[in-house]
């Protein structure tokens, strides 16, 4: 019936054309609006993919991309890197960021392309361990700056002392993905060396630090400056830890200067470029490679384009795929590629060589951590290289266990001195800036405990208030409720976001830290004043997303991380247990001494013995007893040394007296301190 009805209705439908959906546009009309999308346009609209989600992150990403590029360039050229970072506030939501390095400089014609064209770079096409991977970063930062403020990116680059420096002001043409040079009639300006040039640079609002070679990029962008988690300061501090061969100078918008001086005078080994390993290749990539290979035999193709493929293996692959080894790659069709791909997975191929990986090294991790993180115990472990999906990688773990907080170590005299020399406006600010690692929460706690006003000026504190502040600093336990700080690195670059999604964090959570002497609730980070750094070095770091914020969860990677964590955990456990034992022994002596006076008094009351004499004698016996107790032998029958500092934990451990740690307290400047000591 239904069909009958429709048939009847059909003729009536033709009578009323309005019932059918009307075509809104035609294919021809649509074709008119269909056009190329330039990469720059795409990223301009999708800033978040590159880490420009919000003004706060934009500032960090800009600094990060510039610093990463600088370090890569310096290391490639074999120069000990020194980087200056300067952030200046221009308007409430506008900052000028200047980053300079002492790198090799950039050739004149390359400058606009590097800074003004997205996806232009040297790193994408090769498999080699480096910080940057794609070549989007710095040009995207420039693009963001131009879009939000309209101000061009200013670049000065100098190749040598005698040659003039090149100066460019660049904007990106987002439609064409091409740089647009604004100064010197589209040709840039050459600045002569010497005073004249310096004046010219200053006139253009650039703080060039005079160097024989190097590059300075200045970007003005809409941003928000913050401190603490996810801040520029945090990024630079963490960079200093993982790159002890780098010197960083950082001037923040409040004119606080931070200097991270290099603690190692050796450049890391130059990483080698490797060919891809068959296991790490995807079907599409294989097909492209086959197409690109110009008329060679399949056997030759496998041998030359991949690592670890011997003629025997190449023959085995071809046999499994039922393709002749002598067939020309031009004749290999899509179907054959598919079966070749399957065959690769079934063939046993030895792991890629791992000498292309450059770890930081245990010594340098210790140096880096010691330079930046105030603690009393440091240890590091570098795992042997391993392989995931045909990509070699290496895991390194460093751990710093902090003793007492710097606020508790400070002496009264030093506190008075620090209060005099600080230019912080409030006591709260003074505490946060002066004592490293002291967060706003802890500062508030101290101020509350000392019942001081939040807005009090540090230099105008009355002696009574200084006393109150001092006792509060001694009494407030900062490490109370503190949990482990996890610093994640990929190819020496700190990862600051998406902590929970990262394989590192997940592995740290999955490790049982209780057996190493740290408290840990189920499913949370261990408690205690611990900083942990985990570094993954690889020719291709598997990030979960393009913004490079978290490492993907490969079982091979997780296993290596876990082994690294266990290595440092064991060392920490030994140290903590030893410390506990020493404490117990001193407690024990204390207990005896505490009761001896009571005993001697009571005895002398009964039989009239001389109390003082008896007490002395008993103390002597007690000392002998606890000396015996201190001289406990270890399981090999050797006496254990009394002090934890003398504990032998192997060579990748560093134990320092945390009270005298230089990184714990920020003095206003080195020279001032020197003058004071001279007085």
């Amino acid at each position, binding site marked *: 019936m239904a069909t009958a009805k429709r048939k009847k209705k059909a003729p009536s439908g033709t009578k009323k054309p309005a019932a059918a959906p009307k075509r809104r546009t035609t294919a021809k009309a649509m074709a008119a609006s269909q056009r190329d999308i330039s990469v720059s346009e795409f990223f301009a609209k999708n800033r978040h993919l590159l880490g420009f989600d919000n003004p706060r992150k934009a500032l960090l990403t800009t600094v990060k991309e510039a610093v990463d590029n600088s370090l890569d360039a310096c290391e490639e050229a074999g120069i000990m890197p020194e980087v200056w970072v300067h952030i200046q506030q221009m308007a409430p939501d506008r900052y000028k960021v200047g980053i300079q390095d002492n790198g090799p400089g950039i050739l004149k014609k390359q400058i606009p392309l590097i800074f003004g064209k997205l996806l232009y770079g040297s790193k994408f096409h090769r498999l080699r361990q480096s910080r940057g991977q794609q070549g989007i970063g710095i040009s995207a930062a420039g693009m963001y700056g131009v879009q939000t403020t309209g101000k061009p990116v200013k670049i000065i680059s100098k190749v040598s002392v005698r040659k003039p420096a090149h100066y460019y002001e660049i904007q990106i043409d987002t439609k064409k993905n091409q740089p647009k040079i604004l100064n010197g009639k589209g040709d840039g300006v050459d600045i002569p060396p010497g005073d004249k040039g310096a004046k010219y640079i200053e006139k253009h609002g650039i703080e060039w630090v005079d160097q024989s070679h190097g590059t300075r990029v200045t970007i003005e962008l809409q941003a928000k400056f913050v401190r603490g988690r996810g801040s520029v300061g945090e990024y630079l501090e963490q960079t200093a830890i993982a790159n002890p061969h780098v010197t960083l100078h950082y001037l923040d918008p409040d004119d606080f200067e931070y200097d991270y001086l290099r603690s190692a005078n050796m450049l890391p080994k130059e990483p080698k470029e490797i060919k891809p390993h068959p296991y790490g290749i995807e079907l599409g990539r294989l097909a492209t490679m086959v197409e690109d290979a110009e008329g060679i035999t399949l056997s030759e193709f496998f041998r030359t384009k991949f690592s670890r493929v011997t003629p025997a293996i190449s023959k085995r692959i071809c046999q499994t795929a039922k393709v002749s080894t002598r067939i020309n790659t031009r004749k290999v069709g899509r179907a054959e590629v598919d079966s070749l791909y399957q065959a690769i997975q079934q063939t046993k191929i030895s792991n890629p060589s791992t000498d292309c990986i450059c770890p930081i090294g245990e010594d340098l991790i210790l140096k880096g951590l010691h330079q930046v993180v105030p603690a009393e115990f440091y240890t590091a472990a570098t795992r042997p290289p391993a392989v995931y999906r045909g990509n070699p990688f290496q895991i390194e773990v460093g751990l710093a266990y902090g003793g007492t907080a710097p606020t508790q170590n400070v002496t009264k005299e030093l506190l008075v001195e620090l209060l005099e020399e600080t230019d912080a406006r409030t006591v709260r600010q003074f505490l946060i800036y002066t004592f490293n690692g002291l967060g706003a929460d802890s500062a508030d706690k101290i101020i509350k405990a000392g019942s001081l006003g939040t807005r009090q000026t540090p230099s105008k504190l009355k002696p009574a208030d200084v006393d109150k502040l001092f006792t509060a600093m001694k009494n407030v336990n900062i490490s109370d409720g503190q949990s482990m700080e996890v610093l994640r690195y990929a190819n020496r670059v700190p990862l600051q976001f998406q902590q929970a999604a990262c394989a590192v964090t997940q592995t740290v959570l999955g490790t049982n830290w209780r057996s190493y002497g740290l408290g840990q609730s189920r499913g949370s980070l261990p408690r205690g004043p611990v900083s942990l750094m985990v570094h993954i070095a690889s020719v291709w770091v598997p990030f979960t997303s393009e913004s490079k914020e978290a490492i993907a969860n490969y079982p091979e990677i997780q296993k290596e991380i876990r082994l690294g964590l266990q290595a440092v955990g064991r060392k920490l456990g030994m140290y903590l247990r030893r410390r506990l034992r020493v404490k117990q022994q001193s407690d024990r002596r204390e207990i005896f001494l*505490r009761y001896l006076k*009571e*005993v001697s*008094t009571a005895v002398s009351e*009964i039989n009239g013995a001389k109390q003082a004499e008896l007490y002395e004698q008993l103390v002597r016996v007690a000392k002998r*007893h606890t000396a015996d107790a201190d001289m406990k032998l270890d399981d090999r029958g050797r006496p254990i040394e009394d002090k934890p500092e003398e504990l032998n934990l192997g060579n990748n451990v560093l134990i320092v007296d945390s009270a005298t740690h230089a990184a714990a307290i920020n003095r206003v400047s080195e020279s001032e301190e020197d003058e004071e000591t001279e007085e």
Partner: protein
Amino acid sequence: MAKKRPAVPSRKPKAKLTPRDKKTMARLTGLADRVVSAANARRDPYVDIPSRTLSNIRYSPRKRIIEMGSNKNRRQLFDLSQAKAYMRTVLVASGCKQLLDQGKTTSLRGLYYMLKHTIEGAKENTFDDQGECDTIIEDVEVLLNSIREELHLYAENRGAMVGHITLRDRGDVIDCARMGSGGYAIPSIVEPEIIDLSRKKCDAKFILHVEKGTVWQRFNEDRFWEKHNCILTHGAGQPPRGVRRMLNRLHNELKLPVYCVLDNDPWGYYIYSVLKQGSINLAFESQRMAVPDAKYLGLRSIDFDRCGLSDSVKIALNDNDKKRAKQIAKYPWFEKKRKWQSEIQRMLKNDFKLEVESLISKDISYVTEVYVPERLEERDWLD
């Protein structure tokens, strides 16, 4: 010193020591001298305290009392777990020395306050509660082989007596037949120096000991002691040393038999056991305290049926009770007594316990007018 001791003995006039005090004093001085000589010889001072546990007591079938064995626990000053206990031991000894010097006595709590102070240079007290002090006092008693009285210490008065007897308490004549409803409170120290008993002043023929004050009130109100010419005592539960020593003296010096009316539960059995053989904790005093001839009148496990009690008076045994009953059955002084074994088995089989007060459900004065007279008449008791 953080705190001065309340009394400096050298300044106070010394009381004249009795011969008994002199003996105690010699023992105290001996303890102190050993500390000095050990310190001189650079050795650990220690004391060997006879152990006051079940493993260190022995039942003497001949004397029919519990005696202390020879096991000793060494308490050293230079042992982490014992240092504090050692310090306390010496402290208690010095406290007793002061009491002896001044010829005064004090309560256990008094001594606790005398010795309690904060240890110099620590946030720690010598004693934190009286219990800690009391156990140390018992240690010192066994250590010096001097009983509490000799250390000039006494406990709170507990227990009461009433009946046809007249005694002298520190020279005062006490007629226990004229004590009204409260009775004569049995002091903690009932040694001959303080309480003088005389056969001539006692008309009573036996002693009836009941477990607690409420039952004792019932008997006193019904003038049971008058009708049956006896002495009526109670020990407020587990009888303190004063009550036990009093029973011992009445029994031994006045030749009065002792009968007990206690609850039908493991605790009642144990009270009887303590009265008869002495306690495990104070085994060293059994000789002076135990009454091996004491008899157990009731309540018995068969009384529920025998007296026709109603179900409502039953109290179910809990796990603890059952455990304790089995323990008691295994004590050497109960082990060989078939009547006692069947008594305990019966209670376990009943699976309930009975309090003396349950007899009140029959009639208010059932216990005084029927139950006890019947038992005495029939000479129906457990030994």
